[in-house]
């Protein structure tokens, strides 16, 4: 049962055309050059965004920043693997996936500036659901959604059948909710892929505290087929997630993917990783940078300096645009407090809203 994680690209960026990879190589082979280049574009642009947002936080523009540095391959590979009709349930670090699904990164900025709790409409944003901060709770929402797909009837057409992709971390695997979502998913044979980004840390707690056995095995105990991949290999992330989603859709039941990756930055801008982890560990992972690896792969296939320069340009533009738009953000109106607490009218809310308005008015022009 303990086998090596699936890896299609060696750390130095060569395609590994081994027997063991026979199932996945054809999936990669179907990708056009433009698609492969897009993998790089997505990774590089989101990393630049990440850096910019970190800067904005340090400059007091954001209450908090949650870096995704180092996890770009796991996120971009799996995010691109999802088909348009699929529904994606993130945790809170999946900025790359958000962008791939069509969420304006400013929505994440607004959330972490303290302007809203998310608030985008998943249906209008690539079926990308809201960030969820209570660890693990989104896995049940994802499973419920996938139950709904199953109840709405089997399909038969992979181009149209829907599936669900849900993200969570190594720390989250300890939460009861995550286990219960595996129970429900197995029981209802939901069209769903559980995508675990094992970035080796839950804030300061190493994954060894959460589990002494590889986490992909967790799902096997619930009767869910499971596989471990090198999460810093964007091609493995793509091929395995693509296959798993297509296997899951149309009633064949859930799948589980554990992507081994690393959070190269702090947990959040409030965190100081030097308190709990070695320089050496970080060095190791810096040497396994997912973007560097894939760039080597692309260069070996002949991608030009011009391409990388163009991506660099695009990333810089996004960063500048995000900065411009962030500093221009205005605080929400005070009565936003009362908006959408309920969908139907509610007397307590109306009364309190009216009170606040009258109170604010009592300060005259000050309000």
């Amino acid at each position, binding site marked *: 049962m303990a086998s090596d994680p699936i890896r299609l690209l060696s750390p130095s960026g060569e395609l590994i055309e081994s027997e063991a990879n026979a199932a996945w190589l054809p999936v990669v082979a179907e990708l056009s050059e433009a698609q492969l280049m897009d993998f790089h574009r997505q990774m590089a642009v989101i990393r630049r965004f990440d850096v910019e947002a970190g800067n904005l936080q340090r400059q007091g523009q954001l209450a908090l920043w949650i870096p995704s540095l180092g996890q770009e391959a796991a996120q971009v590979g799996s995010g691109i693997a999802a088909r348009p009709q699929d529904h994606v349930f993130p945790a809170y670090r999946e900025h790359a996936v958000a962008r791939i699904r069509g969420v304006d990164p400013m929505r994440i900025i607004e959330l972490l500036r303290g302007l*809203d*709790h*998310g*608030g*985008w*409409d*998943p*249906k*209008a944003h690539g079926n990308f*659901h*809201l960030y969820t901060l*209570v660890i693990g*709770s989104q*896995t*049940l*929402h*994802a*499973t*419920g*959604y*996938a*139950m*709904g*797909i199953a*109840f*709405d009837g089997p399909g038969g057409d992979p181009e149209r059948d829907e599936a669900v992709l849900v993200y969570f971390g190594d720390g989250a695997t300890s939460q*009861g*909710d995550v286990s*219960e*979502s595996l*129970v*429900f998913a197995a*029981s209802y044979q939901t069209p769903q892929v559980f995508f675990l980004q094992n970035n080796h840390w839950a804030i300061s707690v190493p994954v060894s505290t959460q589990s002494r056995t590889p986490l992909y095995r967790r799902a096997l105990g619930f009767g869910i087929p499971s596989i471990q991949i090198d999460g810093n290999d964007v091609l493995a992330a793509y091929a395995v997630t693509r296959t798993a989603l297509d296997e899951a859709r149309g009633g064949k039941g859930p799948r589980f993917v554990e992507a081994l990756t690393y959070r190269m930055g702090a947990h959040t801008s409030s965190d100081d990783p030097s308190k709990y982890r070695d320089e050496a560990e970080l060095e190791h992972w810096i040497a396994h940078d997912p973007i560097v690896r894939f760039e080597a792969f692309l260069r070996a296939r002949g991608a030009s300096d011009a391409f990388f320069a163009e991506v660099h340009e695009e990333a810089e533009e996004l960063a500048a645009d995000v900065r411009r738009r962030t500093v221009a953000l205005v605080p929400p109106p005070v009565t936003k407090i009362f*908006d*959408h*607490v*309920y*969908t*139907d009218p*509610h*007397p*307590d809310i109306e009364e309190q809203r009216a009170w606040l308005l009258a109170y604010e008015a009592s300060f005259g022009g000050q309000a």
Partner: protein
Amino acid sequence: MTPENQAGGLGTSASPAIDLRDPASGGPEDGSSPRGVQTLTMARALNEGLRAALGADDRVLLMGEDIGTLGGVFRVTEGLKAEFGDRRVLDTPLAESGLVGTAIGLAMRGFRPVVEIQFDGFVYPAFDQITSQLAKQTYRHAGSQAFPVVIRIPYGGHIGAVEHHQESPEAYFAHTPGLRVVSPATPHDAYWMIQEAIAGNDPVVFLEPKSRYWPKGEVDLDRAGAGLHESRIVRRGADVTLIGHGAMVATLLDAAELAEQEGTSAEVVDLRSLSPIDYGPILDSVRRTGRAVVVQEAPQRVSVGSEIAATIAERAFYSLQSPVLRVSGYDTPFPPAKLEGVYLPDADRILEAVDRALAY
């Protein structure tokens, strides 16, 4: 008053004389042909209400432990799986957080899940999903989608059951913004309120007073008579206002009857909704009587009764001739069944409070 002679009192008010229908009214509210008045138990009325909701909207789903093949441990969902199939009436795995969490996901897909929690004391494993997820989803989504999930909870005492089977958890939910909390006291209200809860667009915690599942009452199948969140004066009186919900309404009516014999005229308000609370009839009544006693099975500290007492004292300040008194379960865990008669408010304890109020 010992536990033994208390126990006998439980069945005394099989069907309180509440007039269900607005005398000024004619046929059904929706103009369809009248179906008349039937005498049903509350369990049966809920069953009929759920059947009607399942029939009216094929996005309505029932989910829970043992609600399908068995029909629920109280038989409230009896026959519904057979009628609507196992994709509309789900016997789920045994996990309450999973139950509510997946219901949220189903609501995101456009379903209207109605979740049964088997007993009051088993709702707590789902507490995060109810209060931190379900209650906040609409707000978090800035209204881009609604979360019409109903959580049905058979609640309260009087059935002599073991630990965790007789609790009254309403305070936890009534404190939580984003939830609505209601509780019917009669088969008629049960029939209508469950349908309104399901038809509404917000999460509703629907508290079913389990000791009232079996007494029969008249159900007007043609008109609800009151909205989901309206409180109702169910007995007129002049000297004191008695306020309660669920199984306590029958107890209040018993108490009012006894008070009458002692020359005190008590008005009785059935809260029906605990969040929001409809203070119109309550304040109207207290302004007339000048005195109020709030009664509940739940522990007293930081309870719905506390909220009502505080609000009456604030809003009817000049009308009150005595402090608002509360009669509640004691601030202890729900005791062993043989002591429930001591723990739960009964007509005697209510009358004791009435006497104290009148003595001011």
